[in-house]
């Protein structure tokens, strides 16, 4: 029997994330590990390098809380509803403290994850030529192909080095106790970052029985051999969404710029919604019963498939 990797959010963060670590919190709009980000704030982690292709509200909060000194990313924004002002203040004015940035395009950062996961010294991509990013990021270089170009000449592409986060934190619909993670809907770079990282924490809506996971092995996006801790944290992706569990809280996203623009309001929000609460259960209780009613999906079940074999 594989050992159980179940842990509370508090214990998982305390055990796996150290001050100074490089921590990737992934999820592409869908399945953002927000509750884990709040726990990083609550446990007052320091000097983290935080990594995410698409920094959004939870990264604005991590920066505002002083958890991070560096951010690695490829697109930072609050979708189409306004800016992330804490991040902007830090980058534009070093206010209240500077935030070092290391920037890629999406495929460039994804390539860093893939190279990390694959133990490759670099990953080749066809972007960047002629742009201003390589001059600002020494991790974006060129590599010469050992095969000639179509015209017989030398062919170059750009390349990025492997990224090995100390910790990857991902959110998913479900996992078993051994850490076999199942996710559906938009998948993001979670498989890649989980394999690239030294340690991986999977936060899930529910811990499933072994039989459920094993009834659909192709649904497993990250196998247990790449997972160190499983945290059951329902609604832990709020205000982002979990396909089939709850929809995106667009009202919260729209309300964020007004909070984020005012450092006092943002500090107060962090006090009220993170520091003064012991855990995510308290956050949900504070949102109140019925809060998720308007976000409840209309069910749309998949057609079962048959994994049977002959005896």
């Amino acid at each position, binding site marked *: 029997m594989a050992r159980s990797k179940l842990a509370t959010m508090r214990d998982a963060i305390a055990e796996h994330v150290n001050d100074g670590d490089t921590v990737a919190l992934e999820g592409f709009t869908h399945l953002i590990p927000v509750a884990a980000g709040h726990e990083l704030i609550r446990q007052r982690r320091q000097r983290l390098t935080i990594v995410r292709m698409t920094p959004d509200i939870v990264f604005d909060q991590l920066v505002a809380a002083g958890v991070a000194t560096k951010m690695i990313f490829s697109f930072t924004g609050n979708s189409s509803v306004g800016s992330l002002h804490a991040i902007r203040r830090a980058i534009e004015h070093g206010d209240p403290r500077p935030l070092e940035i290391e920037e890629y395009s999406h495929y460039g950062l994804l390539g860093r994850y*893939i190279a990390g996961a694959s133990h490759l010294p670099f990953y080749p991509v066809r972007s960047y*030529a002629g742009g201003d990013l390589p001059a600002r990021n020494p991790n974006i270089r060129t590599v010469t192909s050992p095969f000639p170009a179509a015209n017989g000449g030398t062919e170059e592409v750009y390349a990025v080095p492997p990224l090995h986060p100390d910790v990857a934190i991902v959110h998913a619909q479900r996992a078993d106790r051994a850490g076999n993670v199942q996710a559906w809907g938009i998948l993001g770079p979670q498989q*890649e970052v989980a394999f690239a990282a030294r340690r991986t924490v999977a936060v899930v809506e529910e811990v499933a029985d072994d039989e459920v996971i094993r009834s659909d092995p192709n649904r497993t996006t990250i196998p247990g051999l790449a997972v160190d801790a499983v945290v059951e944290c329902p609604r832990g992706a709020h205000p982002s969404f979990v396909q089939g569990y709850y929809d995106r809280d667009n009202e919260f996203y729209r309300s964020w710029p007004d909070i984020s623009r005012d450092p006092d309001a943002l500090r107060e929000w962090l006090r009220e919604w993170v520091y003064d609460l012991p855990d995510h259960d308290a956050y949900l209780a504070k949102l109140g019963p019925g809060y998720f009613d308007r976000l409840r999906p209309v069910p749309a079940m998949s057609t079962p498939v048959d994994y049977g074999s002959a005896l």
Partner: protein
Amino acid sequence: MTATSEPNLTGCTPSELLTVVSARCLRGRRRVFAGIGLPTLAVALAQATTEPGIEQVYESGVTGAHPPRLPQTIADAPLATGAECILGMHALFGYVLQGGRIDVGFLGGAQIDRWGSLNSTVIGDYAQPTVRLPGSGGAAEVMANAAEVFVVLRRHTPTSLVETLDFCTSPAPLRARRANPNVGTTGRGVTTVVTNLGVLTAADDGELTLSAVHPGVEVADVTAATGWPLRLAPEVAVTEPPTRAELEPLRERIDPTRVYLR
């Protein structure tokens, strides 16, 4: 911007005009990589009118979306519900986009230059920016790999169509080849810019030239609103006003609650 540079529209809004003109530009195209907003509407309108076979691909990996409601982001829950396929990011960026499967990519940006390079990174200096913008996301990849790129700009101003970008986020293939001739480029870069004043089209040498003005807009209004000395195409047409056959599906079926047709 002066009042005279606004198009004189009877019976449609600027957003509707941008959408209709963009949809017309999609004629003959098949696989389209489009963000959320007016490009989504343009693709839906083209599908509803002249190009029923258009296949839309989203950066989030969704292909063949059949959303039960209008999506709010490029990775919104209804895009997944009932979609034909959701690819992983490696397949999306590696196989679909870099693999050369996209005919038209839609891009936006704070600044565009006359050769179709785009800035969505910073206004001001990179190290100490006046305004920090979101950055590339997948824009650099779309520019490098799509067969051609369309840009839709709601506001045609000299600060958005500029002589020199503050930062080049998504270099035009021309610029890429000049910077490093050993890096192969695939597509033509920006071929079409649809703005609230008219349409710019890439000439054979890649320079964006004025090929059409919207009804009521003078050529001089457009050149005045452009940050570089704007070349004119051999013929500058006047945009055909949107027809009822274009506006009806747009208003009644595609964006009836006017989420993006603001």
